[in-house]
């Protein structure tokens, strides 16, 4: 891994983020209606003095270009503005919500990749077998089911009819003072349904992808070479083939991250998960633009970071890319 690549990649990521900041700003400008009126409405009244003081406070009375520069400057300092709704800075609202989202998204990602790849590999072993047919059908079904619908059905089944899993968010409020292990178990307990719901769609895609990828790799010359030197079927499958088949899976996993965050938005809403997605959704209902834009900014940042990590791990996994620019 060379540092210049990493630096270039990071610099480019920052550029993308700057783009998001500008877009954010433009979107707020495009919003119909006077932001000051919206804020005043939330505060419960709109006298002229109040509107003026709000304009002053949020810098709405300055020229647009100045506002943009101010906004960029603030974002660079980690200041995403004040929420229109909550009496708090957007950055602290997001800070409270980041970890749950990351926990949910990463768990779902890991679940879907691990289960998906195992299914895909098993299917690839016998391209015409039962497993293979199952993976194909399952992948198409998984792709076609609306994720929120799966979530609702799971809530009905496992929270209402058979109350096995809780639905009240990420942890049981009554256990907030509990010890670390109990708390961890509690969070795990809450995590099962949302993570599984989110994982299902991507799981199906990974299964399908890894099946195709494995089939391609298994037909390649170096697999024949591995067999010719006497490697066992297991070693051929998991050592020689999977390492190569993992490359496209890795690419898709990176590209999938943005979609995963979108999916998390729906899943968080269904399961009351205290993450950024729900914050964004509720903020949209409240027209809390600074918070919406803050989440959009932060979520994009997560995608950028995920892309950089993917690129880096791709270069680690594929020696052919190492040392290239």
């Amino acid at each position, binding site marked *: 891994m060379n540092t210049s690549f990493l630096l270039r990649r990071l610099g480019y990521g920052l550029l993308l983020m700057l783009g998001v900041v500008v877009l954010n700003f433009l979107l707020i400008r495009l919003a119909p209606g006077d932001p000051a009126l919206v804020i005043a409405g939330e505060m419960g009244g709109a006298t002229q003095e109040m509107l003026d003081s709000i304009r002053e406070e949020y810098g709405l009375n300055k020229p647009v270009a100045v506002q943009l520069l101010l906004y960029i400057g603030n974002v660079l300092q980690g200041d995403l503005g004040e929420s229109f709704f909550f009496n708090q800075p957007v950055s602290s609202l997001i800070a409270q919500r980041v970890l749950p989202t990351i926990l949910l998204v990463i768990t779902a990602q890991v679940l879907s990749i691990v289960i998906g790849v195992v299914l895909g590999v098993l299917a690839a072993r016998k391209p015409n077998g039962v497993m293979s047919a199952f993976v194909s059908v399952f992948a198409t079904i998984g792709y076609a089911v609306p994720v929120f619908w799966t979530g609702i059905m799971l809530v009905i089944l496992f929270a209402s009819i058979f109350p096995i899993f809780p639905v009240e968010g990420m942890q049981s409020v009554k256990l907030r003072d509990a010890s670390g292990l109990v708390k961890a178990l509690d969070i795990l307990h809450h995590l099962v349904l949302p993570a599984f719901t989110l994982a299902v769609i991507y799981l199906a895609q990974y299964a399908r992808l890894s099946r195709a990828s494995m089939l391609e790799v298994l037909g390649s*010359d170096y697999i024949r070479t591995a*067999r*010719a*030197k006497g490697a066992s079927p297991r070693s051929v499958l998991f050592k*020689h083939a999977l390492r190569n088949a993992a490359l496209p899976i890795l690419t898709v996993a990176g590209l999938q991250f943005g979609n995963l965050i979108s999916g998390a938005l729906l899943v968080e809403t269904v399961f009351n998960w205290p993450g950024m997605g729900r914050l964004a959704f509720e903020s949209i209902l409240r027209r809390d633009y600074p918070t919406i834009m803050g989440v959009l900014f932060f979520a994009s940042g997560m995608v950028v970071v995920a892309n950089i990590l993917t690129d880096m791990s791709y270069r680690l996994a594929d020696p052919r890319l190492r040392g290239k620019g």
Partner: protein
Amino acid sequence: MNSLLEIEDLRVTFNTRYGEVTALDSVSLHVKEGETLGVVGESGCGKSITALSVMGLIPTPPGRIAEGAIRLNGEDLTQASEKRMQALRGGEMAMIFQEPMTSLNPVFTVGDQIAEAIMLHQKVDAAQARRDAVALLDRVGIPSPDVRAGDFPHQLSGGMRQRVMIAMAVSCRPKVLIADEPTTALDVTVQAQIFDLLNEIQREFGSAIILITHDMGAISEMADRVAVMYAGRVIEEARADDVLDYPQHPYARGLISCIPALGKDAGGAGDMLAEIPGVVPPLHKLGAGCAFADRCAHQAPRCAVDKPLLAAHGHHPVACHGVEEGWL
């Protein structure tokens, strides 16, 4: 001396959407220790299937060995368990493939790939296997082998990669070494080096080599005996000199006439097609008669209905009615 490897009446079939087709039919071959058997023929004639059958690498399904036996030191490989085959592959017998570009795993270093082959068959630890791998790289003529061992395949040239393949194949001193078109993808000069290397290895290890090629030049350089294959059958078999000097089968004659004059470019498939009109018929369209009949300039009525068998006529065994009946 007895044959080290003996293939007897081998019939291999494949299930395709045209039904079951026979890819190899009544193939019998043998090779002795220290001997080089050349197997020649156009693409699709069954050379590679033969090699893969020996290695037990026929993709099953759709392929299967329907009849016959393959004996290595008297042990019938068609009856051997998968476990046993794993032990034999890379140990007792090894194979060098046609495409050095794609036959090495791109994500492992060449040193690791050779070391893996060593560890699969010899009871040595990783460090020792690594040292052996470097020694092998040195043996196959790779400069600064200790550095090269840490390279990935994409960092090596084609010739280097084929040397790596050879190093990997001979790492456990195989008794039988199958080289499937080992030089097709390489430059002419590199080809010669690779053949030299194979010859050296054979002298050193006493291996039997089965050299599969469509290049008659390679045969003349390397082979002690030659089997000519066409459409899944051996149609002529003899000492290399005999086949080269007195080809009997019209197809063999065609092949021989393709050998370029010395110093010219080694013959490619394109030249060959120019000499023999038509192409190898698809396996599912093989009729009852001689598979070569449609392309044969000397076709007789019998050729279309009656499949000629391999039998000694004159110099050496050949499967042709014309030769058998003496009108050719």
